[in-house]
């Protein structure tokens, strides 16, 4: 008897707790009634990088397509973060329907996840692949093909690395922009600026991938991979890293994480920054100096070659209605107006022929001259190296090698051991 009220009190608190839990449940659960097909779209665009544009496009799509409802999901930490989430989503069995896949994960994605190739989707739902051939150049499509020549997805965003320069600093210290066509010239300029001002000459992006470093090696005539095996530990690969290491050691180049490095460039403490064109709008907004961009440099005696950056859209939906809806959504995203809106919002280059040629995009470029070198670099772009097995570990091995070399390790042995590590897993 004596515990009766106390028990009642407990029951009440318990009930209240349950009620709160259920209230939360019902507010987050979604009903999938009606004839509306729900699909989810996973992307990597943070709010500072076109996230708002993605929301805007999705909203427009949902408005114009009454029978399909797209929900966009942002995945932090770029393509690597998205791949991680996809891997854990696979563990829980809830995969997205349309997925933005970074070029570096092309082969890894195609050999580890279930998806529908764009060619199959076009043939199944349109009856032919005219949509694909009409909108994309062969070169652009080659970026999205895996080792078995299958079209994993449709190229969605394109980017190239460019050399951003602080024109005021260059002028102040008498550096001729033309001398920056080669890495040797960049090194000389950086040294001169450093000696005269104490400022850093150059920053090369150091994110959770080695895209920019690969561009430097490629522009010294090195291969990143040959026949599916890593091949960057060559004389040319070492040569590229040698210049980079020298510059970091004698403090003419800044070695620091990406966010800090770019902040220093935008603030005016670093004269040049080798990074993705996607940074252009941030630089334009933040910098109080005269900023401009030039084509990625190459080594003397070699040509500029860069891995293309960006992503493709792959269909990961499993059942036919959702695949069809996913294809509808992709086609909408590749309309010229959508592509250009997307490009303006993100700083990437549009993937389709018609969008690149459109007046709207050309106007945009003339307002943002920093985009010009990026557009011109597209001809010099090759697919981003992507290893089919253990793609995440392979990228990590290359990042580890970069970090070791920049903190002074022997270049030749470090590259060799990274290469062996990757090839042992293939």
């Amino acid at each position, binding site marked *: *008897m*004596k*515990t*009766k*009220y*106390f028990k*009642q*009190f*407990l029951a009440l*608190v*318990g009930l*209240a*707790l349950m009620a*709160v*839990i259920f209230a*939360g*449940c019902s507010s*987050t659960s979604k009903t999938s009634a009606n004839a509306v097909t729900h699909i989810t779209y996973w992307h990597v665009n*943070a*709010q*500072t*990088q*076109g*996230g*708002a544009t993605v929301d805007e496009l999705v909203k427009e799509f949902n408005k114009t397509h009454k029978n399909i409802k797209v*929900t*966009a*999901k*942002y*995945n*932090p930490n*770029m393509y690597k973060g998205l791949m991680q*989430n996809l891997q*854990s*989503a696979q*563990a*829980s069995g*809830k995969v997205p329907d349309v997925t933005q896949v970074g070029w570096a994960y092309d082969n890894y994605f195609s050999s580890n996840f279930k998806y529908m190739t764009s060619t199959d989707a076009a043939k199944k739902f349109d009856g032919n692949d005219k949509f694909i051939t009409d909108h994309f150049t062969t070169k652009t499509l080659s970026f999205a093909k895996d080792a078995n020549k299958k079209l994993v997805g449709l190229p969605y965003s394109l980017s190239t690395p460019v050399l951003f320069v602080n024109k005021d600093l260059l002028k102040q210290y008498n550096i001729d922009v033309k001398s920056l066509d080669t890495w040797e010239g960049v090194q000389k300029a950086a040294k001169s600026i450093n000696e005269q001002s104490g400022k850093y000459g150059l920053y090369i992006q150091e*994110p959770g991938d080695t895209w920019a470093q690969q561009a430097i090696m490629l522009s010294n005539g090195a291969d990143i991979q040959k026949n599916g095996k890593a091949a960057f530990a060559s004389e040319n690969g070492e040569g590229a890293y040698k210049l980079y290491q020298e510059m970091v050691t004698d403090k003419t180049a800044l070695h620091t*994480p*990406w*966010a800090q490095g*770019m*902040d220093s460039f*935008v*603030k*005016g403490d670093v004269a040049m920054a080798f990074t*993705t064109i*996607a*940074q252009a*709008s*941030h*630089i334009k*907004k*933040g*910098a*109080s100096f005269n900023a401009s961009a030039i084509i990625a440099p190459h080594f003397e005696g070699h040509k500029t070659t860069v891995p293309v950056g960006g992503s493709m859209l792959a269909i990961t939906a499993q059942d036919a209605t959702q695949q069809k809806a996913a294809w509808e959504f992709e086609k909408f995203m590749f309309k010229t107006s959508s592509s250009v809106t997307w490009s303006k919002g*993100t*700083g990437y280059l549009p993937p389709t022929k018609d969008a690149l040629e459109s007046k709207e995009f050309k106007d945009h470029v003339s307002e943002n001259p920093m985009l010009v070198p990026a557009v011109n670099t597209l001809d010099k772009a090759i697919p981003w190296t992507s290893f089919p097995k253990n793609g995440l570990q392979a990228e990590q091995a290359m990042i580890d090698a970069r970090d070791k070399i920049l903190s002074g390790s022997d270049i030749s042995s470090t590259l060799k051991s990274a290469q062996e590590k990757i090839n042992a897993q293939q």
Partner: protein
Amino acid sequence: MNRKKNALWHLPLMIIGIIALLPVVFMISNSFKTLQESYQSILSLIPNKPTTINYTTLNHQVNLARLAWNTFFMATLVTLGKLFTGLLAAYAFRYYQFKHKNLIYLLFVATIFVPFTIVMIPNYLVIAKLNLLNSVIGVALPQLCDATGIMIFLKTMEKIPGSLFDSLKIDDIPNRRIFFNIVLPILKPSIISVGAMFFINSWNEYVWPTLILKDKSSFTLPLALQNYISSEGGTNFPLAMALSSIMIVVPLIIYLIFQRYILNSISNSGLK
């Protein structure tokens, strides 16, 4: 002379006070700068041309109400759960004799020493199986009990003499009345201070939510902050600071209201 000496002791304390507050001032001041000014005048604590553009942009870009609600809902759930389970368990430990009591208590306390990483993988799989990914409930569920609460409540209850309890038992006073009329009033300060700390910690939680919440609409405030530290597009520092300033409002209000309890009874109640 004594005065001088006294002032000398204040010096390190003042320095620590400045270190504690300066980043806060810095955060608020940068939230009123434009991106360009944040790069240009790094030292100034007062913006040259104060602007609210960051706040309006934020309001335009993210659903602040939704974010705040998710965070609030999660923190409330966690706090209520921890208080409820903690009070019950402490009550059992204080006023009942049962087998292996000592061992059970030590096992409970031991959970404080379980590193997050050891339960991370299995708990992730469980939440995924329960279909609670992208739900703040999935974040809260594994966190509904906390041995710290049990410890502090138990030690406060120990201040109530056992003999009092025994005599009430003999008089056949119901448990409910003992709990409400005697235990609860004595416990009130520690419930408030422990509850406030649970809430604030949960409000700010980052690591576990990043594993569970992937969908923007389920984000809590600390996760939304990630939106503005993306390197690929450049970090928009003033925007991030505006969001940070918004984020601190609720913990600050709680602190100001319950400051007396929080500062005086975090451990007063708890540890001898």
